[in-house]
């Protein structure tokens, strides 16, 4: 067993696991953060997307030991002081989900997308960037609407701050 230490949603957390333990299982089972989902387990669906050192990654395809020492953000780390992150609020407002299973990955993907392309997203760009996330309910239309709305909201927030 190897000790893995991560900074998760701003807190230092550690646990023991086998070297072959996947990061998503470590997060769910050792750290008890079950918001990150396992959908396909084969790097296709994106339900397990988290941020590692500021980059969106699929936690089902990374070993926990590979991530040791890194800074992780999961879906549980987005809201602050009881207030939804703008992307979460937009998903709620635009009903960007049906069954909700893919939602944590969709939201983490949307946050990363806005971080990288903030203010310049178009419908076409959002759809291209959702390449690695599958909604089995096929509810993409409202997901795209929610991401575009969050992008606009966050861009106007940045402008107001300047």
């Amino acid at each position: 067993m190897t000790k893995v230490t991560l900074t998760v949603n701003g807190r230092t957390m550690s646990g023991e696991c086998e070297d072959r333990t996947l990061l998503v299982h470590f997060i769910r089972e050792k750290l008890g953060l079950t918001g990150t989902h396992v959908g396909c387990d084969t790097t296709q669906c994106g339900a397990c997307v988290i941020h590692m050192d500021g980059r969106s990654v699929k936690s089902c395809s990374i070993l926990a030991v590979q991530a040791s020492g890194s800074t992780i953000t999961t879906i549980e780390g987005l809201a602050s002081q009881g207030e939804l992150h703008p992307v979460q609020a937009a998903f709620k407002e635009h009903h960007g989900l049906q069954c909700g299973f893919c939602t944590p990955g969709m939201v983490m993907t949307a946050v990363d997308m806005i971080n990288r392309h903030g203010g310049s997203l178009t419908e076409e760009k959002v759809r291209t960037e959702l390449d690695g996330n599958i909604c089995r309910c096929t509810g993409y239309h409202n997901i795209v609407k929610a991401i575009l709305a969050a992008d606009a909201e966050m861009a106007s927030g940045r402008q107001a701050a300047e």
Partner: protein
Amino acid sequence: MYATSYHRASSVEEAVQLRSAHEEGKYLSGGMTLISTMKQRLAAPSDLVDLRHIPALRGISIEGRRVKIGAATPHADVAASQELRALCPAICDLASHIGDPHVRQMGTIGGSIANNDPAADYPAGLLGLGATIVTDRRSISADDFFVGLFETALEEGEMVTAVLFDAPEKAGYAKFNNPASRFAMTGVFVAKTASGVRVAVTGAGSDGVFRHPGLEQALTSSWSADALANVSVDPSSLLSDLHANAEYRANLVKVMAKRAVAAAG
């Protein structure tokens, strides 16, 4: 996944040493192929030597028209490099279409070429550019590096540390995606380099990535998509599988070559 032991190297020397200490070990870069393969129990290395934390293996450096990409540089960094895009946009575009955004944040150029998947994008890019693959012990030309299906000139324990190439006068890449896997059903990289025109094809050859002399000749006499109209692509050495038969791929080679030339401008 079968049990394995993880080692994190902080230098190339340490990585080579760790790898040589474990006969059944493997280097681990982004892991976007290796971890998936291990999950399916198609690979079972006793030990993994992680290369992601070796600073010398990461990053893009440019001197004049000479480009060096560290082996552990993720696809997303190649795709987003403005400096590289100014010199050779084709390689940035190629990188921006590998897998999906999350895979591109982890997957690396060194990992991709060391694996030499017959449908991967980078082998076509590097063969098309006439790149040099630098390892911990020597330099290998792309023409010699890509040997066959999942096979390279790398020896046991040899590690890719960087790739080098001179920015071409013009280059372009076009691929026809397998809609499920995003791997290339056929991808063609065309480049007008100082040493001539090069055309490399991935996803189609039954022996992995290959150059096509007929297409190269046609583009040498005239660099235009129309110049390819009368080139024939022999399907006999191409892959046939449930996604596409060899004749279909032969047609795709021509169509993608034309699109690549159009993209190169």
